[in-house]
């Protein structure tokens, strides 16, 4: 069952490539996408009920393909399916999903699912490259001639990042003789320190650039705003998250926790947070502002991965996906209703009440207000025993830095005059549903029992440590 989120979209992408244009084919493409999404969702539910590692064909770890069917993979895949499915439906509705683009999109889903599912370093490299190739092809579109250059730039950066990652993997393999993460855990002690440091640095660099961290922001700031709305949505919510989610498994391997290389990685992540917010602050274009803030958010995801654990990072990334996805998805209708500028957001309220509501809820979620999922990303470090001071300090600093541009956008969106409720477009309802999903998940965490309820005694105990 855990292999379904990879092989189902992969198989369906071959089928989709045979489809051309036309309404009937569009319906068929929609059915294939729905099947891929549902299959991934069912599989993630099964993984959540029975989390365990999976060996394809029953081969031993060192020879076969290993999958980590754990909670991290299951929840990531469930969210990937929801966001990807919504974006794909919107692309279909806008006539932006031909057979070829649909096939690429399905390939992208298979690759991002594979990247969080795999427990093998070489397979991770393959999935990361598949993500880049399909995403680069999707960025290029005829609506914006500049998108071809942006896609090319993305391809070059991805190639360099992929090569760095592969070199790191090969270096590790040459000393340990294995690519399986579970086996590697036991053999890292055999790897010389210098080689270990270099391989960690190369792999981290590859992952960072693919997630759009400094210096990868150079491709991200061009590719994300120039892609069509539904593609930008998947790029900014999922494509940058998948390498970060995969890094959670890698960075916490006991032997790979090397202070010097972690310090460099932390510095790069911090630089990305500051740079992303600074770039977002000076942007007047809404889509470019969102893209710059993605660099900052991914910097935070890596910082949390390194300093607060994978759960905090996953919460942050999931919260980010559920507000950045809708906002990019709505970029098309926003541009049509009010133009590309942030100040133009005041024009969305008279144009469509649903559009206005979806934008306002997503921006409130971006601010990290409760009960949105993004609030829990700020709260979770409280629950992690033994975290360093960097995670809470950077969460506070990041919130302060993002406040001016997010509040500015929210203020513009709220200041327009009230419009009437007309039949919403598919993008508007999809985006609203995604934003409400964040609200629902956050409310469940607020009301639900379990470890998220923390009493003051626990804080005192933590303080006294």
């Amino acid at each position, binding site marked *: 069952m855990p292999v379904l989120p990879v092989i189902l979209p992969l198989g369906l992408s071959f089928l989709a490539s045979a489809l051309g244009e036309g309404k009937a084919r569009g319906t068929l493409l929609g059915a294939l996408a729905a099947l891929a999404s549902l299959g991934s969702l069912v599989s993630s539910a099964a993984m959540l009920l029975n989390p365990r590692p999976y060996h394809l064909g029953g081969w031993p770890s060192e020879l076969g393909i290993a999958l980590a069917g754990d909670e991290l993979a299951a929840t990531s895949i469930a969210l990937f399916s929801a966001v990807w499915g919504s974006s794909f439906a919107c692309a279909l509705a806008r006539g932006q999903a031909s057979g070829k683009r649909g096939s690429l999109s399905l390939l992208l889903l298979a690759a991002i699912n594979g990247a969080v599912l795999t427990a093998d370093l070489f397979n991770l490299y393959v999935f990361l490259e598949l993500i880049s190739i399909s995403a680069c092809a999707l960025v290029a579109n005829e609506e914006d001639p500049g998108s071809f250059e942006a896609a090319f730039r993305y391809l070059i950066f991805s190639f360099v990042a992929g090569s760095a990652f592969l070199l790191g993997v090969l270096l590790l393999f040459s000393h340990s003789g294995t690519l399986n993460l579970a086996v590697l855990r036991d053999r890292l002690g055999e790897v010389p320190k210098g080689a270990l440091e270099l391989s960690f640095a190369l792999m981290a660099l590859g992952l960072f650039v693919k997630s759009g961290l400094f210096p990868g922001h150079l491709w991200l700031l061009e590719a994300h705003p120039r892609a069509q709305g539904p593609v930008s949505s998947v790029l900014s919510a999922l494509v940058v998250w998948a390498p970060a989610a995969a890094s959670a498994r890698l960075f916490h391997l006991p032997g790979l926790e090397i202070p010097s290389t972690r310090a460099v990685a932390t510095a790069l992540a911090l630089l990305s947070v500051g740079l992303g917010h600074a770039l977002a602050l000076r942007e007047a274009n809404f889509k470019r502002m969102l893209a710059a803030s993605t660099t900052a958010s991914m910097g935070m995801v890596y910082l949390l991965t390194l300093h607060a654990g994978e759960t905090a990072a996953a919460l942050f990334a999931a919260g980010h996906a559920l507000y950045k996805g809708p906002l990019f998805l709505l970029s098309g209708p926003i541009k049509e209703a009010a133009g590309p500028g942030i100040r133009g957001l005041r024009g969305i309220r008279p144009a469509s009440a649903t559009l206005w509501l979806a934008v306002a809820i997503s921006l409130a979620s971006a601010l990290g207000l409760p009960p949105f999922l993004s609030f829990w990303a700020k709260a979770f*470090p409280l629950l992690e025993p033994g975290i360093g001071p960097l995670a809470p300090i950077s969460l506070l600093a990041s919130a302060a830095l993002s406040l001016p541009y997010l509040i500015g956008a929210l203020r513009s969106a709220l200041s327009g005059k009230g419009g009437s409720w007309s039949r919403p477009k598919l993008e508007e309802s999809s985006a609203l549903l995604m934003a409400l999903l964040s609200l629902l998940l956050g409310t469940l965490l607020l009301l639900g029992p379990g470890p998220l309820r923390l009493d003051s005694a626990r*804080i005192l105990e933590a303080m006294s440590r």
Partner: protein
Amino acid sequence: MNLLALEAGFALVGLSCVPFCLWYFGGKVGRRNAALCLASAASAALAVRAEGAITTLALLELSSLLLALVLLKDGALLSVYLSVQVMSGTAALSGLALAGCGGYRELGVAVATLGMLLKAGAFPLHFWLPRVHGDAPAPASALLSSVAVAGGAMALSRLIPPGEASGLLFWSGAASILWGTGQGLLQRDSKRALAYSTVAAMGVALVLASRGEEGRLALSAHLLAHALYKATLFMAVGVVEKSSGRDLLLARDPFRGAWPIPVAMVVAIASALGTPATIGFSSKELSKEALLQVGKGMALLAGVAPTVVLGRLLALLVAGGLGGLSSGALNPRRDLGVLLLSASLLLPILAGLPPAERARAWAGEAALALKLSIAAYLLARPLARPWDLEDLLFGRGLLRMSRLLAGRASPEREGDESPPYPLAILAISLALLAVAVANTAAR
């Protein structure tokens, strides 16, 4: 028991806001805002008793978010309020997480305390409160100045471990009392004056919170009494503003045909002054008991200073013949909320009157407060201010300065009279000195 009373108080304020919102906004907006106000009060009430730090902060921020939606019409106000809430919540969460990291306990507690001080609107992080509370629609002001800040102060006392940051709480509280009182006295806009008196009342709450467990009961009582009388006053001022289109202190015959409003105001101010047989009396007695352990000076300051602003309001109302008070038909939507709240302030009557000795002691303090309020007002009123220090400190002054330098005069709002800041600073410095001397002498 004290938490239960506070929860009930929050719920009562929320319920009272429902008919008032329906009257104030009218139609669909009225129904929406009534639901938002009720949900906000309910969320704050749940936060009072929530079992965990995260849940408490989440419920408080949720309450703020719901209340922010009532401010939708004023984007600037909404931006300021949301920014403050986001930063205060994040600072509190990050500070508590930081305090759990080895070696960062003091820094973490300080960050969390500053976050909560920002939420409660305490000096010097009160810069947003007078503007937001003063300019918001009256139902929102009523909830902001009662439930929202009280929830913040209560959460602060529960989240910051006893004995931690007590110096910061004490001095921020003392400065809030003096600054809020000084500024409140000098306002000519009644909503701004009430907002500054909230700063002063939060100062008392912080001084009580700095006492840890010993001040917990007095703190709950103080927050309950403050929530009830401040919500009543903001609603009453809102009635006048809505009916006459002008501020209470500028309107001609503000209470014509609306007799329940001045009655409720007098009851609320009487409770704020700690009149026997009102909730304010019990809360003041408890506060005095807790603060006498700090020193007589602080007990006197906390008992008298915050009431001075409201004493001046009462003096002005009485001097103005209670604004042309005349009888008229009861308007249930308009009057139900204020009547319900003012009636609740008189609930201690059911338990009987306090002993004559305690009543006499109160009369002495109340007379002092009234004399101080009249004297301070008369002294401060004729002086012009050279600089608007608070604006200068917190941003707007820089804008004004740049306008002045560019040769453009800044537009003045009606009733936004320039208070004489140098005198206020001098008075505050002298009062701080007097408190310090009195405390030292008492020990």
